[in-house]
């Protein structure tokens, strides 16, 4: 078994040897951010359990594996629109697919979106909408604090980009389905950006699925900015297989009077780690961070949340619930920061875990 230094060195080698491919097709802003992120990663490395924030999840076995890494979009030999069907009945959504962390090349056109709404891949967004993209990309995800996030930013090539212009309400949710489909064990890096402008409203559902039984490691980072008076709901549905590792980091920044609900539901996966960061950057924000996990066998789920009350008069609620069976393990760490002596503040944090003990 490799030690952590070997793993970190492997990534350094990948960054050096794959540098040309990494830079290819990415915008200058992405590549500049990439460079800084790699420096941060070189300092931080993959977090071990000695790191206070990762003390409940051992990432060494997750990374200690010869994965394939795609630094270029790989064409898919079948029509994913044909082979993938969302099983949830009566779920009427604007659906887009991602394959192994990349925005799928043959997504159906979304005809029902209101004017001005953009749904596309990150590479495409960086090229076509540089003003919006550059104003937000890399601004919220902190690479200097978490090696996983730094690694994501260093290797980021694509993911989904969603933009909701000022005052626009998208009533029908946007559904993003991340499909993992490979004939070899794979590490996918996915980088997403969601921008919800003033007084806009959107609901986004992100689902993870595995289409083959190879070992997968997904390192996904999503940055979200929710502007003044905007309302945004983010549902994450994690449903992979026992041989997969999900590292999912979300960074949400909220402006005044914005209202964000996030709900992370972990149904199936070998090892799942969710980092959920919320920055209440202006007054009168409301944030509800919820989560649920259903785990059995030897699955492991670790929800780490950090809610930063940077300004007064914000409201945050946090509630996680879990049901565990067999040898499954679960962890929850909720950090709440109150930066000043804030006079009007209400926050709640609750976690409930229910364990089934199988009768033998």
């Amino acid at each position, binding site marked *: 078994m490799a030690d952590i230094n070997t793993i970190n060195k492997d990534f350094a080698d990948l960054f050096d040897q794959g540098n040309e491919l990494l830079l290819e097709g990415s915008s200058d802003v992405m590549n500049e951010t990439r460079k800084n992120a790699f420096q941060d990663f070189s300092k931080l490395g993959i977090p071990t359990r000695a790191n206070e924030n990762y003390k409940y999840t051992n990432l060494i076995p997750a990374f200690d594996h010869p994965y394939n890494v795609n630094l270029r979009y790989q064409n898919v030999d079948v029509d994913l629109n044909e082979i993938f069907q969302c099983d949830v009945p009566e779920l009427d959504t604007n659906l887009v697919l991602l394959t192994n962390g990349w925005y799928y090349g043959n997504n159906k056109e979304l005809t029902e979106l209101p004017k001005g709404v953009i749904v596309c891949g990150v590479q495409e967004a960086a090229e076509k909408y540089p003003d919006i993209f550059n104003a937000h990309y890399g601004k919220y995800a902190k690479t200097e604090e978490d090696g996983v996030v730094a690694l994501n930013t260093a290797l980021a090539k694509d993911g989904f980009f969603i933009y909701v212009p000022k*005052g626009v309400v998208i009533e029908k949710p946007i559904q993003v389905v991340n499909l993992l489909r490979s004939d070899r064990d794979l590490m996918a890096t996915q980088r997403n950006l969601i921008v919800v402008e003033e007084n806009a409203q959107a609901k986004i559902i992100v689902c993870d699925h595995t289409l083959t039984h190879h070992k997968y490691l997904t390192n996904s980072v999503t940055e979200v900015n929710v502007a003044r008076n905007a309302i945004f709901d983010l549902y994450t549905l994690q449903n992979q297989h026992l041989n997969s590792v999900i590292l999912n980091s979300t960074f949400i920044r909220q402006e005044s*009077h914005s209202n964000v609900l996030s709900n992370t539901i972990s149904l199936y996966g070998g090892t799942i780690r969710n980092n959920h960061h919320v920055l209440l950057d202006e007054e009168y924000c409301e944030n509800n961070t919820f989560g649920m996990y259903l785990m059995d066998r030897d699955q492991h789920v670790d929800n780490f949340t950090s809610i930063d009350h940077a300004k007064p008069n914000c409201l945050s609620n946090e509630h996680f619930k879990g049901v565990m069976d067999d040898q499954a393990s679960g962890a929850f760490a909720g950090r709440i920061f109150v930066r000043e002596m804030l006079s009007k503040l209400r926050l709640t944090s609750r976690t409930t875990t229910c364990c089934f003990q199988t009768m033998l």
Partner: protein
Amino acid sequence: MLSIKNLHVSIEGKDILKGINLDVKPGEVHAIMGPNGAGKSTLASVLAGRDLYNVTEGEVIFQGKDLLDMEPEDRAKEGIFLGFQYPIEIPGVSTVNFMKTAVNEHRKYKGLDPLSASDFLKLMREKKALVEIDSKLTNRSVNEGFSGGEKKKNEIFQMAMLEPKLAVLDETDSGLDIDALRVVANGVNKLKTRDNATIVITHYQRLLDYIVPDVVHVLYNGRIVKTAGKELALELEEKGYDWIKEENGK
């Protein structure tokens, strides 16, 4: 019904309202729009009688009476309802008890006997259905642990219970998603009669798609700088407030 003449208001020596004139007749819906800091919420608070503010000049006549001369609770009982932008939590006081006290105070003021417990609960059931508020909320302490949207719904529920002559809804739309906005607007519309009036204060036009105003005013820098029909709201939504600011020299 309501007549505001040359109203000047200051707080801690700083002038906020600089000569407001406004006439509201029964059956009308007025929208007051404006950029942040224009004085919209101050106007609402002054009408309700919050004494953080000093009225330095002008008069407000409500149904023939000098409103500024009345205590806040008497203004309420005369029929003024303020839907708060940030509704207050009162821990330990059940919504039922709170509303029962309020409704019976209103009845006493009108010379009516207090409602019996069963009549009151019946009234509550009716109004809850009218504004589509969940019993889960009314069974809890007033606004305690409510989300922003729940608080706003609770304001409309209280409005339904108290049947005001003039409802002033201060940024009732902020923090509401589109579904909650429809519920709230629906409630307001159902409560509308020929005899009552509503002043809707909002920054955005969206609410006015659902609560359609007869008149739209633009409040800027302590003055009403523009008054027109509902199309003004759409214009503001499209063009923002900058042109208002430019027209008014800032």
